[in-house]
């Protein structure tokens, strides 16, 4: 039996090693405030993938000894994970509603800071086969429009926008994420999709973006905050400052985000 137990331990050990489950050395604050040192994990909304990847890299360059691990997903999913105990040091949300959930759970270290805004734009397949020019065109009976479901931030924005603009939208599909909306547009299945202007920018040549005046009616605000209980609270705070500072504004602005 002893031999079997040892065999089991070896098997489990190998499994853990292969899956990288072994507990990494936790970010250890040195106690010295002179230089920043430690690892942080940043949970950021999926729409921040490109910008935050850039920002994390330049942050690490500016602060040798720090490591920024990024985790991108829908804001709502991220909040749920953090509330369930996921080891996040910083949370950057794509909307204020989800940030409120974290604040309500008393998991924010200080007040969230708005660092960017985003507005909706119309994404159409290259060549714009349905000839869409503005928001009103999306209500056309033959236009296959794909939006985000009202349960997710981009969908909430779309619903709010349609209400303020007085347009009745009849989408053929309400997707769970921006990626799924863009997927339907790039593949040509849909004639148009309502996504964030930054998503259009990130999609490159795969879609054409059409901006419209009514988009100001539904501006999405992105807040960021350190999460309580971080082992590297100083690094987390520094990263939040970095994003809200000049470098952050420049990188975000280049990607199409608006200033808060």
């Amino acid at each position, binding site marked *: 039996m002893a031999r079997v137990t040892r065999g089991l331990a070896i098997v489990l050990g190998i499994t853990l090693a292969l899956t990288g489950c072994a507990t990494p050395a936790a970010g250890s604050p040195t106690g010295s405030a002179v230089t920043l040192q430690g690892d942080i994990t940043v949970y950021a909304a999926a729409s921040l993938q490109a910008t935050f990847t850039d920002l994390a890299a330049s942050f690490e360059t500016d602060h040798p000894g720090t490591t920024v691990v990024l985790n991108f997903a829908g804001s*709502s999913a991220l909040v749920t994970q953090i509330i369930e105990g996921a080891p996040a040091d910083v949370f950057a949300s794509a909307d204020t509603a989800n940030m409120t959930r974290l604040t309500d759970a008393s998991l924010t270290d200080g007040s969230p800071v708005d660092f960017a805004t985003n507005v909706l734009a119309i994404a159409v397949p290259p060549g714009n086969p349905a000839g869409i020019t503005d928001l009103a065109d999306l209500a056309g009976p033959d236009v296959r429009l794909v939006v985000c479901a009202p349960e*997710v931030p981009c969908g909430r924005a779309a619903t709010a926008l349609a209400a303020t603009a007085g347009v009745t939208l009849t989408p053929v599909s*309400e997707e769970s994420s921006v990626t799924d909306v863009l*997927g339907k547009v790039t593949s040509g*299945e849909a004639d148009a999709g309502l996504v964030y202007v930054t998503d259009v920018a990130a999609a490159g040549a795969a879609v054409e973006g059409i901006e419209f005046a009514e988009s100001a009616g539904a501006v999405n605000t992105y807040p960021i905050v350190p999460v309580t209980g971080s082992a590297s609270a100083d690094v987390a705070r520094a990263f939040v400052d970095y994003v809200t500072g000049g470098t952050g504004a420049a990188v975000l602005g280049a990607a199409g985000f608006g200033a808060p």
Partner: protein
Amino acid sequence: MTVPRWVFAMAGIGAAFVLLPLVAMVLRVNWAEFVPLISSEASVAALLLSLRTSLAATLLCVIFGVPMALVLARTDFWGQKVLRSLVLLPLVLPPVVGGIALLYTFGRRGLLGQTFELLGIEIAFSTTAVVIAQTFVALPFLVLSLEGALRTVGSRYEAVGATLGASPTTVLRRITLPLVLPAVLSGAVLSFARALGEFGATLTFAGSLQGTTRTLPLEIYLQRETDPDTAVALSLVLVVVAVIIVSLAHRTGEPSRRRARALS
């Protein structure tokens, strides 16, 4: 054979690995709100759509899967082995990949999409697309279980039938199909279960709209964003339906095994 005790230990860990997440989920169910949560308009629409599309997909699986299994089990031709592997591909393919493949086939700009469009059939964002996605992922289950059953039963009864003057169609109808009926049923039940759980291909290929394409798994995925209670409650419904189906499949599958033993 006496099962060594350490095998029991390993089996116990394995069973716990499967069962604990279910228990954990059940513990999270908001029982006070359970009935209102699962009887909301969106939930009911998703459940009904799921049942309807899965049933249609199962029917398609039987209509096309039975002939496929027959051809694989009873004929011998060049490239058959390769064909079998390819036909069973959806079993191992990530559903999203399946969805992408279907998109390039039946999508508006896909291989067949334009032909369908000319015929006035629109597949994109329709319930048909859901059924296609479900059939795609569920078909191998029926083909696989039926082909095995056909091989076990063998072709000797069919040969006897032929020498008694029965045409190939009569042999199929009166001998082959009755003999493998339990396998057809259990294969169909498995296909139904797989269709019911289909998510990735549907999400990629069919879209998500209440009452049209938003099946129960898609509804759960969406509700998870804002309303975890509903997501958990619906997950439980799906689990219960799946458990009922799997136990049904086991029950219908048993006679075929008994018969197989009697034959050997």
